């Protein structure tokens, strides 16, 4: 098991380094002078040259890459042309917002998909099952940003149940920074009204983020339950006269959810991408919205940093899910190594 995780970590690292090389080279070979983007057009030529030398942009690309890499390991992601400060500072400011939103969305997705999946799997070919199927087709077919816009229109503008943007209401001030996570900081300082307000703001974007994947996971759990239900040991348990409740929750459920958990991990990882769209629609002050704005201004350092950070989170989620699956499924756990 440990060997397996170690191997996964190693190859994830290789892929990430490859990715960073690719995206770094790509950013440097496209036409356009990064220095010219940083300074005003009136800047005299010798100042431009000095700046170019101080940022090592006159060196060959591979040297630039190694300098950049060294800086990354020291926690320095470079200067952002868009925000006019270090990308590291921006990441520290915006990333916790996105992580909070994604965590919230993941919780909604996990709960929702399990309930729906078990609901459909316990009532095969009845209306509950068909309803879940319809829901899953909608979930697969409607892009995240369409969900976001429809939710905004219906639940915020028309019904007025939720606010239409931002993370906190205007009068509510952010709790003083301890961890950077609003909900956690407010909790540590006992500001429960702030937590409520924050959750109120985050609910709609979180649901918009959670729904597309929820449907697919529910379908996987449903089909898992059908497969396992046909196994002999389930018939035997029933034949012994065990109560249906025990058969279902003790013997049927655990092996049924394994394919669902794998897909769930993929879906949560995909949220990292969809967050870009949802944060944009809801004006959520998170990392993805910041990254999009930086991308629109061709801010190279921020783009490279974004890809790298999302890549790291993507790898972590994937490895955690695989470990979790191995934990649920003793066949993998004991055969593994």
């Amino acid at each position, binding site marked *: 098991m440990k060997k397996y995780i170690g191997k996964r970590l190693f190859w994830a690292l290789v892929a990430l380094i490859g990715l960073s090389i690719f*995206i770094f080279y790509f950013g440097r070979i496209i036409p356009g002078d990064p220095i010219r983007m940083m300074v005003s057009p009136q800047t005299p030529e010798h100042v431009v040259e000095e700046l170019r030398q101080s940022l090592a942009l006159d060196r060959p690309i591979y040297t630039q890459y190694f300098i950049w890499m060294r800086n990354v390991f020291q926690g320095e992601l470079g200067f952002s042309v868009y925000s006019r400060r270090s990308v590291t500072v921006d990441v520290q400011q915006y990333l916790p917002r996105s992580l909070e939103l994604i965590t919230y969305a993941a919780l909604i997705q996990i709960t929702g998909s399990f309930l729906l999946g078990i609901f459909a799997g316990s009532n095969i070919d009845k209306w509950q099952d068909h309803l879940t199927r319809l829901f899953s087709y909608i979930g697969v077919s409607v892009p995240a940003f369409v969900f976001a816009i429809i939710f905004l*229109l219906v639940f915020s503008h028309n019904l007025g149940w939720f606010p239409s943007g931002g993370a906190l209401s205007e009068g509510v001030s952010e709790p003083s920074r301890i961890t950077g996570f609003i909900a956690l900081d407010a909790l540590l300082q006992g500001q429960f009204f702030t937590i409520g307000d924050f959750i109120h703001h985050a609910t709609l974007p979180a649901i918009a983020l959670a729904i597309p994947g929820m449907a697919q996971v529910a379908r996987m759990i449903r089909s898992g339950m059908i497969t396992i239900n046909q196994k002999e040991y389930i018939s035997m348990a029933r034949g012994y006269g065990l109560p249906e409740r025990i058969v279902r929750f003790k013997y049927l459920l655990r092996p049924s959810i394994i394919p669902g958990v794998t897909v769930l991990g993929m879906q949560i990882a995909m949220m990292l991408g969809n967050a*870009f769209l949802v944060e944009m629609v809801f004006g959520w002050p998170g990392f993805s919205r910041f990254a999009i704005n930086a991308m629109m201004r*061709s801010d190279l350092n921020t783009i490279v940093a974004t890809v790298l950070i999302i890549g790291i989170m993507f790898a972590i989620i994937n490895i955690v899910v695989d470990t979790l699956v191995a934990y649920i499924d003793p066949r993998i756990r004991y055969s593994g190594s």
Partner: protein
Amino acid sequence: MANDNNEIEEIDEQVEEQVDEEADEQVEEQVEKLLDEKKESPLKDALKRRWYRFSKNPLSKIGLAIALTSIFLAIFGRYVVPHPAHAGLYRDYGNKFIEPFQTWTFPLGTDSYGRCVLSRTIMGFKYSIRMAAVVLSLVVPSGVVVGLVAGYHKDTWIDTLLMRTSDIFIAVPPLVLALSITAMLEPDPFYAMMAVSLMWWPWYARIAYNNVSSLVNEDFVKSAEIMGDSKLHIMFSEILPNCTGPILTKLTLDVGWVIIIGASLSFVGLGAQAPTPDLGTMVADGSGLLPTWWWVSIFPAMAISFIILGFNLLGDGVQDAFEEVGGGS
């Protein structure tokens, strides 16, 4: 008596032989006939069987209908719509923000420039379908070839090199990398297609790889190797035809995914630019007009979902059709 009996027996035998021969001939004729029929139609039979499995689920047929309609509208959209001129920079401020379902001239209303939302939405099909067509026709052959070569050379340096390279491009969600690459270039539908293609081929490489690496140890591959067939022949004529099912299924399901990614890129502003009637761009432009003029963004949004739904249903049908025949999921 004995002689007579013998003669009679001889005659009997002769008659029997004749009858037998005739019967044999008849049977042979029938068999030949059957064989001829068989010769004509193994492919036809297989197609029939697959169509049967496909059409067992009515949803698959609905999906096929939606997909064909979408393709038709993508090609002939501008000849069908009531206002083909509204595709570009057209201004008619007298007719702006007409509500939907009020007049027959503008069934789905008009936008801020007085352009027909129905016409623009239908003409937008072209950009979504074109995106999917271009991306998949680039990605499927290249990905499959990489997976095929890597899978055939399993556990050699070729395998490691190819598959680990492909891992690089799926180390982040496709949308993030596509956004980043398009952002570094300039907002343009062509760059968007190239960027999406760049992160899509690894999935086909993986599918082909997984199928091939389970097929290489099959007897028909071993015997082709013993016969001295070339590697190219074995890879493309022996192994590849056995992977078509999963690849075809993935392909139809991917049409929807590519359209989602393409629409997302346009929605962010990195795809086709206004006034092009790209569906994602239209949703983005209209989202600023919410909630008063909701129809400007909601109808294109529904159109995107409609196309994707069609191809998803179609994909499920294709999966049913190939389930056992294709070998593998």
